[in-house]
Protein backbone atom coordinates (compact mmCIF):
# COMPACT_ATOMS: atom_id res chain seq x y z
CA UNK A 1 0.00 0.00 0.00
CA UNK A 2 1.82 3.07 -1.20
CA UNK A 3 1.22 6.11 0.96
CA UNK A 4 1.38 9.53 -0.64
CA UNK A 5 1.83 12.30 1.90
CA UNK A 6 1.23 15.70 0.34
CA UNK A 7 2.19 17.50 3.53
CA UNK A 8 5.69 16.04 3.79
CA UNK A 9 5.83 15.55 0.01
CA UNK A 10 6.76 11.90 0.22
CA UNK A 11 5.76 8.75 -1.57
CA UNK A 12 6.30 5.80 0.78
CA UNK A 13 6.43 2.28 -0.59
CA UNK A 14 7.12 -1.13 0.91
CA UNK A 15 9.21 -3.79 -0.81
CA UNK A 16 9.63 -7.27 0.64
CA UNK A 17 12.47 -9.67 -0.16
CA UNK A 18 11.07 -13.20 0.06
CA UNK A 19 12.65 -16.61 -0.44
CA UNK A 20 14.06 -19.74 1.17
CA UNK A 21 16.31 -19.65 4.21
CA UNK A 22 19.98 -18.79 3.60
CA UNK A 23 19.14 -17.65 0.07
CA UNK A 24 20.69 -14.18 0.45
CA UNK A 25 17.80 -11.86 1.30
CA UNK A 26 19.60 -10.21 4.20
CA UNK A 27 22.78 -10.05 2.10
CA UNK A 28 20.89 -8.04 -0.53
CA UNK A 29 19.91 -5.46 2.09
CA UNK A 30 23.39 -5.38 3.60
CA UNK A 31 24.86 -4.62 0.19
CA UNK A 32 22.36 -1.81 -0.45
CA UNK A 33 23.10 -0.42 3.01
CA UNK A 34 26.84 -0.48 2.36
CA UNK A 35 26.66 1.15 -1.07
CA UNK A 36 24.09 3.94 -0.91
CA UNK A 37 25.06 7.34 0.44
CA UNK A 38 24.53 7.53 4.20
CA UNK A 39 22.30 10.60 3.83
CA UNK A 40 19.87 8.66 1.64
CA UNK A 41 19.33 5.72 3.95
CA UNK A 42 18.35 5.02 7.53
CA UNK A 43 19.62 2.36 9.88
CA UNK A 44 19.64 -1.29 8.89
CA UNK A 45 17.58 -3.03 11.55
CA UNK A 46 17.92 -6.79 11.94
CA UNK A 47 15.74 -8.77 14.27
CA UNK A 48 17.87 -11.89 14.17
CA UNK A 49 18.70 -14.88 16.34
CA UNK A 50 22.07 -15.25 18.08
CA UNK A 51 23.29 -17.19 15.06
CA UNK A 52 22.35 -14.29 12.78
CA UNK A 53 19.38 -16.03 11.20
CA UNK A 54 16.51 -13.64 10.57
CA UNK A 55 13.94 -14.08 13.33
CA UNK A 56 11.33 -11.50 12.37
CA UNK A 57 12.66 -9.22 9.63
CA UNK A 58 15.43 -6.93 8.46
CA UNK A 59 14.50 -3.39 7.57
CA UNK A 60 16.24 -0.68 5.60
CA UNK A 61 14.68 2.65 4.57
CA UNK A 62 16.20 4.24 1.44
CA UNK A 63 15.41 7.36 -0.57
CA UNK A 64 15.72 6.64 -4.26
CA UNK A 65 15.32 10.20 -5.52
CA UNK A 66 12.70 12.85 -6.13
CA UNK A 67 9.93 12.76 -8.68
CA UNK A 68 7.51 15.62 -9.29
CA UNK A 69 8.79 17.23 -6.11
CA UNK A 70 8.05 14.16 -4.01
CA UNK A 71 10.73 12.13 -2.24
CA UNK A 72 10.45 8.44 -3.06
CA UNK A 73 11.04 6.56 0.18
CA UNK A 74 11.30 2.81 -0.08
CA UNK A 75 11.12 0.59 2.96
CA UNK A 76 12.96 -2.64 2.23
CA UNK A 77 12.11 -5.67 4.33
CA UNK A 78 13.28 -9.25 4.36
CA UNK A 79 11.29 -12.10 5.84
CA UNK A 80 12.67 -15.05 7.82
CA UNK A 81 13.17 -17.83 5.28
CA UNK A 82 12.98 -20.75 7.65
CA UNK A 83 9.77 -22.71 7.13
CA UNK A 84 8.47 -22.52 10.71
CA UNK A 85 8.43 -18.73 10.82
CA UNK A 86 5.41 -18.46 8.54
CA UNK A 87 3.36 -16.30 10.92
CA UNK A 88 6.14 -13.68 10.89
CA UNK A 89 6.50 -13.90 7.12
CA UNK A 90 2.82 -13.34 6.60
CA UNK A 91 2.83 -10.35 8.92
CA UNK A 92 5.61 -8.64 6.95
CA UNK A 93 3.71 -9.09 3.68
CA UNK A 94 0.83 -6.97 4.90
CA UNK A 95 0.37 -3.89 2.71
CA UNK A 96 3.35 -4.77 0.52
CA UNK A 97 3.82 -2.81 -2.72
CA UNK A 98 6.47 -4.90 -4.43
CA UNK A 99 8.04 -8.33 -4.02
CA UNK A 100 11.51 -9.64 -4.78
CA UNK A 101 11.79 -13.41 -4.66
CA UNK A 102 15.41 -14.30 -3.90
CA UNK A 103 15.96 -17.85 -5.11
CA UNK A 104 19.00 -19.93 -4.24
CA UNK A 105 20.56 -21.14 -7.48
CA UNK A 106 22.12 -24.25 -5.97
CA UNK A 107 20.52 -27.30 -7.56
CA UNK A 108 20.00 -28.97 -4.18
CA UNK A 109 17.97 -25.95 -2.98
CA UNK A 110 15.41 -26.28 -5.76
CA UNK A 111 12.85 -27.90 -3.48
CA UNK A 112 13.30 -25.19 -0.85
CA UNK A 113 12.86 -22.57 -3.59
CA UNK A 114 9.65 -24.18 -4.81
CA UNK A 115 8.27 -24.49 -1.30
CA UNK A 116 9.02 -20.84 -0.58
CA UNK A 117 7.48 -19.65 -3.87
CA UNK A 118 4.32 -21.63 -3.16
CA UNK A 119 4.27 -20.21 0.36
CA UNK A 120 4.56 -16.70 -1.09
CA UNK A 121 1.57 -17.22 -3.40
CA UNK A 122 -0.43 -18.75 -0.54
CA UNK A 123 0.33 -15.95 1.92
CA UNK A 124 -0.43 -13.26 -0.64
CA UNK A 125 -3.70 -14.96 -1.52
CA UNK A 126 -4.69 -15.02 2.15
CA UNK A 127 -4.49 -11.22 2.10
CA UNK A 128 -6.46 -11.19 -1.13
CA UNK A 129 -3.46 -9.93 -3.14
CA UNK A 130 -2.82 -11.28 -6.61
CA UNK A 131 0.93 -11.57 -7.06
CA UNK A 132 0.60 -11.79 -10.83
CA UNK A 133 -0.87 -8.29 -10.92
CA UNK A 134 1.69 -6.68 -8.62
CA UNK A 135 5.27 -5.44 -9.00
CA UNK A 136 7.18 -8.71 -8.71
CA UNK A 137 10.70 -9.68 -9.74
CA UNK A 138 12.72 -12.84 -9.26
CA UNK A 139 16.42 -12.90 -8.40
CA UNK A 140 18.52 -16.02 -8.86
CA UNK A 141 21.27 -15.61 -6.31
CA UNK A 142 24.58 -17.45 -5.85
CA UNK A 143 25.25 -17.68 -9.58
CA UNK A 144 28.98 -18.01 -8.82
CA UNK A 145 28.66 -21.38 -7.11
CA UNK A 146 29.74 -24.47 -9.07
CA UNK A 147 26.51 -26.29 -8.21
CA UNK A 148 24.29 -23.48 -9.52
CA UNK A 149 21.47 -24.84 -11.67
CA UNK A 150 21.10 -23.40 -15.20
CA UNK A 151 18.92 -20.28 -15.33
CA UNK A 152 16.60 -22.00 -17.81
CA UNK A 153 15.89 -24.73 -15.24
CA UNK A 154 15.25 -22.16 -12.51
CA UNK A 155 12.95 -20.19 -14.79
CA UNK A 156 11.02 -23.32 -15.76
CA UNK A 157 10.54 -24.29 -12.12
CA UNK A 158 10.08 -20.97 -10.35
CA UNK A 159 8.97 -18.48 -12.99
CA UNK A 160 7.13 -20.49 -15.65
CA UNK A 161 4.65 -17.65 -16.15
CA UNK A 162 0.96 -17.20 -15.68
CA UNK A 163 -1.84 -16.98 -18.19
CA UNK A 164 -2.66 -13.44 -19.22
CA UNK A 165 -6.40 -12.81 -19.01
CA UNK A 166 -6.46 -9.17 -20.10
CA UNK A 167 -6.74 -8.97 -23.92
CA UNK A 168 -5.09 -5.53 -23.77
CA UNK A 169 -1.88 -7.33 -22.81
CA UNK A 170 -2.01 -9.79 -25.73
CA UNK A 171 1.15 -8.53 -27.39
CA UNK A 172 4.75 -9.64 -27.30
CA UNK A 173 6.57 -7.65 -24.63
CA UNK A 174 10.35 -7.96 -24.80
CA UNK A 175 12.26 -8.46 -21.57
CA UNK A 176 14.21 -5.18 -21.23
CA UNK A 177 16.86 -6.93 -19.17
CA UNK A 178 17.53 -9.94 -21.43
CA UNK A 179 17.91 -9.49 -25.16
CA UNK A 180 15.93 -11.99 -27.20
CA UNK A 181 13.62 -12.96 -24.33
CA UNK A 182 10.07 -11.84 -23.67
CA UNK A 183 8.07 -11.04 -20.56
CA UNK A 184 4.76 -11.58 -22.36
CA UNK A 185 4.43 -13.99 -25.25
CA UNK A 186 2.09 -16.46 -26.89
CA UNK A 187 2.97 -20.12 -26.35
CA UNK A 188 2.42 -22.97 -28.80
CA UNK A 189 -0.99 -23.84 -27.34
CA UNK A 190 -2.16 -20.32 -28.19
CA UNK A 191 -2.26 -18.97 -24.64
CA UNK A 192 -0.60 -15.69 -23.73
CA UNK A 193 1.78 -16.07 -20.84
CA UNK A 194 3.54 -13.47 -18.70
CA UNK A 195 6.64 -13.96 -16.57
CA UNK A 196 8.14 -11.86 -13.82
CA UNK A 197 11.39 -10.09 -14.76
CA UNK A 198 14.37 -12.04 -13.45
CA UNK A 199 17.94 -11.20 -12.49
CA UNK A 200 21.06 -13.22 -11.88
CA UNK A 201 22.96 -12.22 -8.78
CA UNK A 202 25.91 -12.85 -6.53
CA UNK A 203 24.60 -10.79 -3.64
CA UNK A 204 27.63 -11.40 -1.47
CA UNK A 205 29.71 -9.24 -3.81
CA UNK A 206 26.83 -7.06 -4.96
CA UNK A 207 26.33 -8.40 -8.49
CA UNK A 208 22.71 -7.96 -9.53
CA UNK A 209 21.61 -6.42 -6.24
CA UNK A 210 20.94 -2.91 -7.52
CA UNK A 211 19.58 -4.17 -10.85
CA UNK A 212 16.97 -6.08 -8.88
CA UNK A 213 16.16 -3.16 -6.58
CA UNK A 214 15.90 -0.72 -9.47
CA UNK A 215 13.57 -3.02 -11.41
CA UNK A 216 11.15 -3.62 -8.57
CA UNK A 217 11.17 0.05 -7.45
CA UNK A 218 10.46 1.18 -10.98
CA UNK A 219 7.54 -1.24 -11.24
CA UNK A 220 6.16 0.03 -7.92
CA UNK A 221 6.27 3.66 -9.04
CA UNK A 222 4.83 2.80 -12.45
CA UNK A 223 1.92 1.14 -10.68
CA UNK A 224 1.14 4.63 -9.33
CA UNK A 225 1.42 6.30 -12.74
Amino acid at each position, binding site marked *: *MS*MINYASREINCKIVYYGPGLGGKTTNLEHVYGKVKPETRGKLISLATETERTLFFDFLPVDLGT*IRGFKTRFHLYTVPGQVYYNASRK*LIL*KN*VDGIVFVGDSQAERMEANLESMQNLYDNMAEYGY*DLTKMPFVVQYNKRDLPNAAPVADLQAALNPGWEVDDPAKFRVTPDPYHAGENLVQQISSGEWVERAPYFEAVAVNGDGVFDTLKAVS*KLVLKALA
Partner: protein
Amino acid sequence: MTAGAPTWTFTEDDFGAITDCMRRFLDDTNAMCAMLVDKSGQLVTTVGTAPGLDATTFATLTAADFGANDQLARILGETEFTTLFHQGERESVFVADVARRLILVVIFDSRTSAGMVKLKLKPQVEELTALLDSAMARSRAGAPPRQKLLHGAEQEIDDLFQW
Protein backbone atom coordinates in the same frame (compact mmCIF):
# COMPACT_ATOMS: atom_id res chain seq x y z
CA MET B 1 -8.30 -10.82 -5.61
CA THR B 2 -6.90 -7.36 -5.90
CA ALA B 3 -3.58 -6.30 -7.38
CA GLY B 4 -2.52 -5.41 -3.86
CA ALA B 5 -3.46 -3.16 -1.00
CA PRO B 6 -4.99 0.12 -2.16
CA THR B 7 -2.90 3.24 -2.21
CA TRP B 8 -4.05 5.91 0.14
CA THR B 9 -3.48 9.59 0.10
CA PHE B 10 -3.26 12.32 2.71
CA THR B 11 -4.23 15.81 1.75
CA GLU B 12 -2.66 18.80 3.48
CA ASP B 13 -6.03 19.43 5.18
CA ASP B 14 -6.20 15.89 6.57
CA PHE B 15 -2.63 16.19 7.72
CA GLY B 16 -3.19 19.56 9.39
CA ALA B 17 -6.26 18.34 11.28
CA ILE B 18 -4.45 15.21 12.44
CA THR B 19 -1.35 17.04 13.66
CA ASP B 20 -3.45 19.69 15.45
CA CYS B 21 -5.34 16.94 17.24
CA MET B 22 -2.10 15.21 18.26
CA ARG B 23 -0.52 18.47 19.41
CA ARG B 24 -3.46 19.16 21.71
CA PHE B 25 -3.06 15.68 23.13
CA LEU B 26 0.61 16.35 23.96
CA ASP B 27 -0.34 19.63 25.64
CA ASP B 28 -3.05 17.90 27.67
CA THR B 29 -0.93 15.00 28.83
CA ASN B 30 2.59 16.44 28.92
CA ALA B 31 3.80 13.41 26.96
CA MET B 32 7.03 13.86 24.99
CA CYS B 33 6.14 12.64 21.57
CA ALA B 34 3.23 11.20 19.60
CA MET B 35 3.56 9.39 16.31
CA LEU B 36 0.97 8.19 13.85
CA VAL B 37 2.14 5.12 12.00
CA ASP B 38 0.55 3.23 9.16
CA LYS B 39 0.15 -0.51 9.88
CA SER B 40 2.66 -1.24 7.13
CA GLY B 41 5.24 0.63 9.23
CA GLN B 42 5.24 3.95 7.37
CA LEU B 43 5.47 6.99 9.58
CA VAL B 44 2.56 9.32 8.84
CA THR B 45 3.49 12.11 11.20
CA THR B 46 5.24 12.84 14.45
CA VAL B 47 4.56 15.59 16.96
CA GLY B 48 6.88 16.55 19.82
CA THR B 49 10.36 15.17 20.33
CA ALA B 50 12.18 12.45 22.19
CA PRO B 51 15.98 12.75 22.43
CA GLY B 52 17.86 10.62 19.94
CA LEU B 53 14.69 9.13 18.50
CA ASP B 54 15.01 7.59 15.04
CA ALA B 55 11.34 8.01 14.14
CA THR B 56 11.44 5.90 10.96
CA THR B 57 12.92 2.90 12.73
CA PHE B 58 10.67 3.39 15.73
CA ALA B 59 7.62 3.47 13.46
CA THR B 60 8.58 0.26 11.68
CA LEU B 61 9.29 -1.65 14.86
CA THR B 62 6.08 -0.39 16.44
CA ALA B 63 4.02 -1.61 13.49
CA ALA B 64 5.72 -5.01 13.68
CA ASP B 65 5.18 -5.12 17.44
CA PHE B 66 1.53 -4.22 17.03
CA GLY B 67 1.07 -6.72 14.20
CA ALA B 68 2.63 -9.53 16.23
CA ASN B 69 0.44 -8.71 19.22
CA ASP B 70 -2.61 -8.63 16.98
CA GLN B 71 -1.85 -12.22 16.00
CA LEU B 72 -1.33 -13.17 19.65
CA ALA B 73 -4.76 -11.72 20.42
CA ARG B 74 -6.36 -13.81 17.72
CA ILE B 75 -4.68 -16.96 19.04
CA LEU B 76 -6.30 -16.20 22.39
CA GLY B 77 -9.66 -15.71 20.70
CA GLU B 78 -9.63 -11.94 21.12
CA THR B 79 -10.47 -9.73 18.16
CA GLU B 80 -7.53 -7.47 18.94
CA PHE B 81 -5.41 -5.92 21.67
CA THR B 82 -6.41 -2.33 21.11
CA THR B 83 -3.72 -0.89 23.38
CA LEU B 84 -0.19 -1.95 24.28
CA PHE B 85 1.91 -0.53 27.08
CA HIS B 86 5.69 -0.84 27.36
CA GLN B 87 7.07 0.38 30.65
CA GLY B 88 10.66 1.55 30.90
CA GLU B 89 12.74 2.96 33.75
CA ARG B 90 12.72 6.49 32.35
CA GLU B 91 10.52 6.43 29.27
CA SER B 92 7.42 4.41 28.50
CA VAL B 93 5.25 3.88 25.46
CA PHE B 94 1.55 3.47 24.81
CA VAL B 95 0.50 2.08 21.45
CA ALA B 96 -3.12 2.19 20.31
CA ASP B 97 -5.09 1.17 17.23
CA VAL B 98 -6.72 4.00 15.26
CA ALA B 99 -9.48 3.18 12.80
CA ARG B 100 -8.05 -0.35 12.25
CA ARG B 101 -5.61 1.22 9.85
CA LEU B 102 -3.13 3.31 11.80
CA ILE B 103 -1.30 3.10 15.09
CA LEU B 104 -0.90 5.92 17.57
CA VAL B 105 2.37 5.77 19.52
CA VAL B 106 2.84 7.93 22.60
CA ILE B 107 6.24 8.24 24.29
CA PHE B 108 6.28 9.78 27.74
CA ASP B 109 8.53 10.12 30.78
CA SER B 110 8.21 11.03 34.45
CA ARG B 111 6.77 14.47 33.64
CA THR B 112 3.43 12.71 33.32
CA SER B 113 1.99 9.36 34.38
CA ALA B 114 0.77 6.24 32.65
CA GLY B 115 -2.65 6.88 34.16
CA MET B 116 -2.90 10.37 32.71
CA VAL B 117 -1.80 9.22 29.26
CA LYS B 118 -4.20 6.29 29.32
CA LEU B 119 -7.07 8.51 30.48
CA LYS B 120 -6.60 10.94 27.62
CA LEU B 121 -5.75 8.27 25.07
CA LYS B 122 -9.31 7.02 24.56
CA PRO B 123 -10.85 10.37 23.50
CA GLN B 124 -7.72 11.07 21.44
CA VAL B 125 -8.13 7.79 19.56
CA GLU B 126 -11.82 8.51 19.01
CA GLU B 127 -11.07 11.94 17.59
CA LEU B 128 -8.36 10.61 15.29
CA THR B 129 -10.63 7.76 14.21
CA ALA B 130 -13.36 10.25 13.26
CA LEU B 131 -10.86 12.33 11.26
CA LEU B 132 -9.50 9.31 9.44
CA ASP B 133 -12.91 7.78 8.79
CA SER B 134 -14.05 10.96 7.11
CA ALA B 135 -10.85 11.11 5.03
CA MET B 136 -11.38 7.48 3.98
CA ALA B 137 -15.04 8.11 3.19
CA ARG B 138 -14.06 11.01 0.95
CA SER B 139 -11.50 8.81 -0.71
CA ARG B 140 -14.08 6.07 -1.32
CA ALA B 141 -16.74 8.51 -2.54
CA GLY B 142 -14.53 9.71 -5.36
CA ALA B 143 -10.89 9.84 -6.25
CA PRO B 144 -9.19 12.79 -4.59
CA PRO B 145 -8.22 15.41 -7.12
CA ARG B 146 -4.51 14.61 -7.01
CA GLN B 147 -4.64 10.85 -6.61
CA LYS B 148 -2.91 10.36 -9.96
CA LEU B 149 0.20 12.11 -8.81
CA LEU B 150 2.44 10.13 -11.15
CA HIS B 151 0.02 9.94 -14.06
CA GLY B 152 2.00 10.17 -17.28
CA ALA B 153 5.31 10.12 -15.42
CA GLU B 154 6.68 6.94 -17.01
CA GLN B 155 9.64 8.73 -18.58
CA GLU B 156 10.44 10.59 -15.34
CA ILE B 157 10.34 7.29 -13.49
CA ASP B 158 12.74 5.76 -16.02
CA ASP B 159 15.02 8.78 -15.63
CA LEU B 160 14.96 8.44 -11.85
CA PHE B 161 16.68 5.08 -12.15
CA GLN B 162 19.53 6.11 -14.42
CA TRP B 163 22.08 5.39 -11.71
